[in-house]
């Protein structure tokens, strides 16, 4: 990894002290580190008072149910904050390890984090200076079939399973479940779950890389003796299992093991998705799992809706550069030297941007209550259906693929297409107006599109310039160079779509002062090494259009009632109605003759937008003359048009209190998933817009189809 840094970081201890208030760190003490400098602290008593004070004025905390735990956290934290020695900023990507006697909490946090990252990869290689500490009882790594007999027990009455994991052990699985950590600490995709925390839903569908639960083991409470820990853990197991079933487990439990509880997960989302015939097996095994026969089918977990996978299934692969970048960014966020870090993640298609983003956000959420997220990728959006740009405040970890967390972003702008090439200016203007809403008080992760050539690259340059980026993460894969390295030096001379390199004025060096956008940044280059990096996914539900459909289905699953019951198709919901003259209608992606516009709008997906202008049409429909850049509050289906009464009918999960502001319906090239139209049951007559008779055999019946890289006859010979 190359870290490009041109501005030397000045250390302002007073400022950092301040920052600590915002940047709360739970204590992470690696097992093998000498805890003597922390645990027998007499200062603790004194600090306890201080700590409880702190709690009141610090809302930015990870929610913990157990008070005692939370306080003990803070103790250590405050202790560290007062006693800490200034730690060296990371400059060359060298892994910190248990910093040989250094007691700065940064390095401890660091090493523990590094360790967790290490284990994620199966604990194979160890980083420089890092010794992996392994409980003697069980080797770290995937829990294999035979082991489940010893470490898992199912409670049939409540239908849940208690699983005891030894430090470093991993559980990689397909399916969905609710995970709570009863004792110790486990890590899932960068996020650490501790005992006493709420339970989190985990989604590991066949469309994505399977999730892995890793036992971290090192108990969050340093003052606990081994014995006390063991007793506590056993008490917890007792609480959850009946006498006859817990016996085996109790012998497995030790002070540094983790006890987790897995429960079945049944939400409107999962009910709605699996009600479609094609998606029935969405949370089942992927074709690859079946091919490699990596599923362990008969385990105490199988009744819960999850299937553990053997080692053959791989799980997430993190390259060295990946881990280093992650470490570097976490450290940068902890330091906060000059304002909150503004992290931009870029790279060509399918190099793992999205996965990295989720991992990064989850990791940051271990330390801070929220992370901002700016979506600049129209195609593969994280929190919204595609075709939207958005700014979200992320407070919950992202423990599944995008379609499992279609949460309403704080701000959203409807663009209407899954790529921006038709209107680069509107794209940038939309982003700029979102950027203006960023409060700069929390770290922000900016996701960019996979279009990194030509104008796409220019837009990337613009974004780096305009949004005063402090860290750029550039992902790449294979040997093929998709776009040049975005070093600060390179950026100084490259042209964007709207921005240009500064003219070398007479003032010379002063440039940096007058150009905040030209502020220098740190570049992390990540080389993705997972199988299939840089190539589009070929398995079921992996194609980009399927992903888009899933996101939309995920979004509309919010309509389903939270109580279990039959899944309602979209057309069965009582719609909202609004007069034609009260909302404007606009088509963003093509020119439609105004008199025929309702033919496009009927039974279509619409973005619900808010214009500043007052919309009133004297009884007739109101049409937009051009596409505005305006806030969008959600999506709906224009369920029907009542021409006689002049009403639109709309089905939407958006709350009425928000819907009242909507005065504009925008249509885009992102359309409703076909299954929503073809799968309508219980209707009278034929569904509109659906036919059985369209023949694709006929010439010209298909869509425009562009062959990329058509070889000329001569070339072929040459190649052979």
């Amino acid at each position, binding site marked *: 990894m190359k870290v490009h840094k041109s501005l030397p970081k000045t250390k302002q201890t007073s400022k950092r002290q301040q920052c600590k208030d915002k940047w709360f760190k739970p204590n992470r003490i690696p097992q093998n580190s000498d805890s003597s400098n922390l645990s027998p602290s007499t200062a603790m008593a004194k600090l306890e008072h201080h700590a409880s004070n702190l709690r009141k004025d610090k809302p930015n905390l990870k929610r913990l149910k157990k008070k005692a735990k939370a306080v003990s956290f803070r103790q250590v934290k405050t202790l560290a904050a007062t006693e800490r020695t200034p730690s060296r900023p990371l400059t060359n990507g060298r892994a910190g390890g248990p910093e040989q006697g250094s007691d700065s909490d940064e390095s401890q946090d660091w090493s523990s984090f590094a360790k967790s990252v290490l284990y994620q990869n199966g604990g194979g290689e160890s980083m420089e200076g890092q010794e992996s500490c392994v409980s003697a009882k069980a080797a770290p790594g995937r829990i294999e079939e035979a082991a489940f007999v010893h470490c898992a027990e199912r409670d049939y009455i409540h239908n849940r399973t208690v699983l005891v994991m030894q430090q470093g052990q991993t559980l990689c699985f397909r399916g969905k479940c609710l995970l709570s950590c009863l004792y110790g600490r486990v890590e899932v995709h960068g996020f650490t779950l501790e005992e006493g925390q709420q339970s989190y839903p985990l989604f590991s569908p066949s469309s994505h890389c399977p999730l892995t639960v890793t036992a971290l083991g090192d108990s969050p409470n340093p003052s606990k003796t081994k014995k006390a820990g063991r007793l506590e853990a056993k008490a917890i197991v007792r609480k959850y299992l009946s006498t006859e079933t817990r016996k085996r487990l109790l012998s497995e439990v030790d002070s540094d093991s983790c006890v987790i509880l897995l429960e079945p997960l049944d939400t409107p989302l999962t009910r709605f998705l699996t009600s479609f015939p094609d998606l029935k097996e969405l949370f089942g095994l992927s074709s690859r799992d079946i091919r490699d026969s990596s599923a362990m089918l008969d385990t105490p977990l199988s009744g819960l809706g999850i299937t553990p996978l053997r080692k053959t299934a791989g799980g997430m692969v993190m390259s060295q550069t990946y881990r280093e970048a992650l470490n570097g960014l976490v450290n940068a966020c902890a330091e906060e030297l000059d304002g909150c870090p503004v992290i931009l993640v870029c790279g060509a298609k399918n190099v793992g941007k999205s996965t990295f983003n989720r991992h990064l956000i989850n990791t940051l959420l271990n330390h801070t209550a929220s992370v901002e997220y700016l979506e600049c990728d129209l195609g593969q959006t994280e929190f919204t259906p595609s075709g939207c740009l958005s700014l979200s405040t992320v407070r919950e970890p992202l423990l599944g693929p995008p379609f499992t967390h279609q949460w309403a972003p704080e701000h959203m702008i409807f663009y209407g297409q899954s790529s921006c090439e038709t209107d680069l200016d509107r794209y940038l203007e939309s982003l700029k107006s979102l950027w203006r809403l960023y409060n700069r008080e929390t770290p922000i992760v900016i996701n960019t599109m996979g279009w990194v050539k030509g104008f796409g690259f220019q837009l990337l340059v613009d974004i780096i310039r305009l949004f005063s980026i402090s860290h750029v993460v550039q992902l790449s894969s294979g040997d093929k160079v998709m776009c040049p390295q975005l070093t600060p030096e390179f950026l100084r001379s490259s042209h964007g779509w709207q921005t240009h390199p500064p003219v070398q004025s007479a003032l010379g060096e002063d440039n940096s002062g007058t150009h905040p956008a030209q502020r220098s940044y740190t570049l992390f280059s990540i080389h993705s090494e997972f199988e299939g990096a840089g190539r589009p996914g070929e398995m079921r539900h992996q194609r980009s259009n399927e992903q888009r459909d899933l996101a939309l289905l995920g979004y509309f699953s919010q309509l389903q009632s939270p109580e279990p019951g039959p899944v309602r198709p979209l057309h069965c919901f009582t719609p909202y109605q609004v007069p034609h003259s009260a909302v404007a209608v606009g088509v963003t992606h093509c020119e439609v003759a105004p008199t025929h516009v309702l033919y496009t709008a009927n039974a279509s997906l619409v973005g619900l937008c808010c214009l500043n202008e007052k919309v009133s049409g004297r009884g007739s429909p109101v049409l937009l003359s051009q596409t505005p850049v305006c806030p969008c509050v959600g999506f709906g289906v224009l369920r029907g048009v009542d021409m006689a009464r002049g009403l639109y009918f709309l089905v939407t999960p958006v709350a009425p209190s928000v819907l009242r502001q909507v005065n504009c319906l925008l249509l885009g090239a992102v359309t409703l998933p076909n299954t929503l139209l073809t799968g309508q049951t219980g209707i009278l007559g034929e569904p509109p817009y659906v036919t059985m008779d369209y023949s694709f055999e006929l010439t*010209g019946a298909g869509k425009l189809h562009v062959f990329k890289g058509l070889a000329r006859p001569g070339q072929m010979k040459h190649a052979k």
Partner: protein
Amino acid sequence: MKKKTTEKNGHVVAWINKAEWDQVLEYLYSKDCALQKYALHRISAWKGRFAHNTPIAVESTADLVRCQILDRSGKLDADDLVLLYGTALMRFVNLITERQQGKIARPLRRLASNLKIPEWIVNLRHDITHRKLPTLKWCRKGCKFVLEWLQQEYWSRQLGSGLAENWDSQSEGEDGEEELQRQENELITRQKEMESYKKARELLISFEKEQFQTFEEFLEEDKQTSLWPEPSADMSWILAQIKHFALESSEILIDALIEDGFMVPTIEQLVSLSVDNSDDADPTAPHLPRVVLRFWLPLLKDLNSQLFINLLLEKLFVELQQLSEDDQKHRSFYIAGWISEVILCNANKNEYHYESKIQRKARLKDKIFMKRIQLRWQQLLAACLNAPCVAMPHLLQQILEDMEHPMPLDTRQKLLRLSSIYTQGADSGYDPSMEHSGQPSGIYTLESLHERLRVQSRRQVYMMHPGTVSDSLKALPERTEDFQEHLSPDVLAERAAELRGSPWQVCTDKVQWKNYPLGKVPGQSEDPSCLMVDNFSTIMVFDQQVEMENATQHNAHAGVSMPHRVTTDGLLWTHNDISKLKAGLQLF
């Protein structure tokens, strides 16, 4: 992903119904410019719906008709028109031949002739792209011809003869060659399968012959010794062959095995094995005649491996599922019998404690395998539930009892109960505990089933059972439940209160929305022109600031691409802005 449903449920298109399609077709090819224009406008709306999936033929037709309309309007010069026609014709030839292209570029002429497009049209395209522009006369001629071609090849044949093909096969774009390659590969594998299947049958037949012979000899010799002779040398050889075959293609072997005439004996075979085939066998608890079992035992004993047994069970269940109940009683009896037998072999019941050695020996002799093997219980359970037949409760019982990680007792009981209700096994008495309080058993109406299910599902929602089981249970209530959303008066009032003062309302019409598909409302006419907007108003919108609360900084430069200030605390304009402004200034 969509393949299955599209086959069943149709394809999504841009027109509401056939009437709209017919109207557009009629207007496109009418001589009246106003009607043609109308059709073009409608196609512009279709393009909005189709987004990137507009059929090439529709797009090309619209482009060419547009040229004709402009030509007839008389407002354009010949040179203008040549450019217009030229683009439309060029696009037509390029796009229509695109799909014919393979990996290597081939001459358009050849591709076009495959499509019955004459060479002169292709030459016209060549002229337009890289030679001297053709004359207007040639353009008109070309346009006329291509429109006719489109009408013949696309419009008039579409939506007519019900040649429904797969949407995905074309729209997702495998090109012709790949498709061909795939078909070829498929053909080859199919062929190979056929060959190995034949071989499997031959092997099995020779096994049967050998066994029959032994059987007859054995019958003649001594009826009292219940022992079958040791396999002969021939037999060993056959078995070795079968075993070898199974290594490579156990699936095919199993497929053949469970055919009629093998593991499911024909009537003639039964007669020659002197099995009484009267109907007194209880179909709800199938039990294989011992002779049949022993007949196949040498083979099965030889083949037994975890993989093979699992596969065999799987296939047997699939077979069972496909059997319709009435006409194939015999077959399903035997299939179920074999399943039962295999599971029985695996059972780890302890009830044989007190048997004598001889009894034990006799029992073990008939076992296909001795050691308990790992069965895929979850799948077995699912497969069993998927294959309803009279024997289902019996099999289910066996599976449930034997599972490695048994399900909760009451779930088991409920499942059994359900299955016996489903198969109308008239309470075969598997779980007396469920037989509560003199409820008239026997006749179950749909209602009583529903009631039962409702109670059950309510109780079991949080106490889920294995996914597959819950799925099969859920499938039932869904079919009949009322899909219509009924908002309670409270919810309605709350929503109304929140919307008060805005133009939005909750629709309070008494409408059974579940009857109306998306895109249809009560009272909507079938007339394709029902959605026309007669008068409308247009509004100009300036770019909106997203900050809704802070609407003071309203910057109003719609459409002008002017870079914004980078940060609020810098200079008003950056260098870039200034240089842009300077460039934009015009001194008159």
